[in-house]
């Protein structure tokens, strides 16, 4: 009898493991099957992304707040000259995006600014010998059905078009979960910025996306433009 119960417990554990093992494959298949479009706070699906807001003044350390207040996009924003937005800015443009996933590697493409981002999925620890780059060094793993991406080795630039600073101490954690509500499928993303030189505490951004399987990502091919004719800052 006891051995029977033990067998049931072992079977249950195996079944649970199988479910956990299968969930990432199902989620990965859903992620890869579509372009994902950003949904703003009003529930609108945006065809080409949009400004997703900035961290409020209250979460910034005094020096970071001063840096943001003195930021002049005309001279200080590398994106104005079509330079790389880097992470997390590439993500927080609310751009349509795609996922291509294998056992070893995840490639995330963002339409806006033609950003392609590589995420190592083979369990290798972050390599601190790699140079700092705009997108940093990203590693991914599954926690049940949640895709978790950790990013280090980011270079110094800005987080958004208002010039929120990004120091060499910044690390990111993104958590991606597919969810269903009201008969629709959503990709829920929590992005945590850890930067003790900028924020009073880790700052968490939440974003929702919906699948658009009939879309294709377009080439963005950014063209530099005269600064006098550049819409720079969202005012409200």
């Amino acid at each position, binding site marked *: 009898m006891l051995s029977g119960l033990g067998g049931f417990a072992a079977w249950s554990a195996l079944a649970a493991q199988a479910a956990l093992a299968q969930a990432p494959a199902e989620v990965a298949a859903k992620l890869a099957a579509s372009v994902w479009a950003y949904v703003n706070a009003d529930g609108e699906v945006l*065809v*080409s992304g949009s*400004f997703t807001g900035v961290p409020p003044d209250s979460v910034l350390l005094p020096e970071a707040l001063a840096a943001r207040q003195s930021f002049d*996009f*005309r001279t200080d924003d590398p994106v104005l000259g079509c330079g790389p937005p880097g992470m997390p800015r590439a993500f927080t443009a609310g751009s349509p995006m795609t996922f291509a996933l294998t056992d070893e590697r995840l490639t995330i493409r963002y*339409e*806006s*600014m033609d950003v392609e981002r590589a995420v190592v999925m083979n369990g290798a620890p972050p390599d601190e010998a790699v140079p700092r780059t705009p997108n940093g060094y990203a590693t991914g793993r599954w926690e049940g059905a949640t895709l978790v991406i950790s990013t280090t080795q980011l270079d110094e630039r800005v987080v958004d078009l208002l010039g929120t600073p990004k120091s060499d101490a910044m690390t990111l954690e993104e958590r991606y979960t597919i969810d269903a509500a009201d008969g629709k499928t959503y990709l829920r993303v929590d992005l945590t910025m850890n930067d003790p030189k900028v924020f009073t505490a880790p700052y968490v951004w939440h974003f929702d996306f919906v699948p658009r399987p009939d*879309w294709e990502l*377009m080439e*963005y*091919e*950014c*063209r530099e*433009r005269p*600064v*006098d*004719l*550049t*819409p*720079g*800052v*969202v*005012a*409200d």
Partner: protein
Amino acid sequence: MSSVRKLLRVCVLTVAASVIFAGAGSAHHSISGEFDNARQVTGEGTVKEYKLINPHTDIVVAVAGEDWTLTFGPATKLIRGSGWNEDTLRPGDRVTATGRPARKGLGLYLAALVKADGTVLIDDLEE
């Protein structure tokens, strides 16, 4: 009043009164930077260049002997969201435009754009 009706009213006023961009009114909008959110202007002109590009689409329009650059959102938005393509505008097309003027130079960030045949290409005027 709907945005389109408001735009048509603006067009009529424009054709009747002026072919030169002239400031009037105010607008609340989330675009600022090099454009003046406090003013909204309307004018009519002839398309000289049409550049469906990112991050901002530009249309150069001749107005009373001067070239104005009309700026709008990314090509990706116009192509996917509004069905624009390389033939949406052609040199020689007459258009009426409304938007916020550049602080420097002859530029406008578009809130509305209508072709002479009445085709509404952009209708972002606020109620």
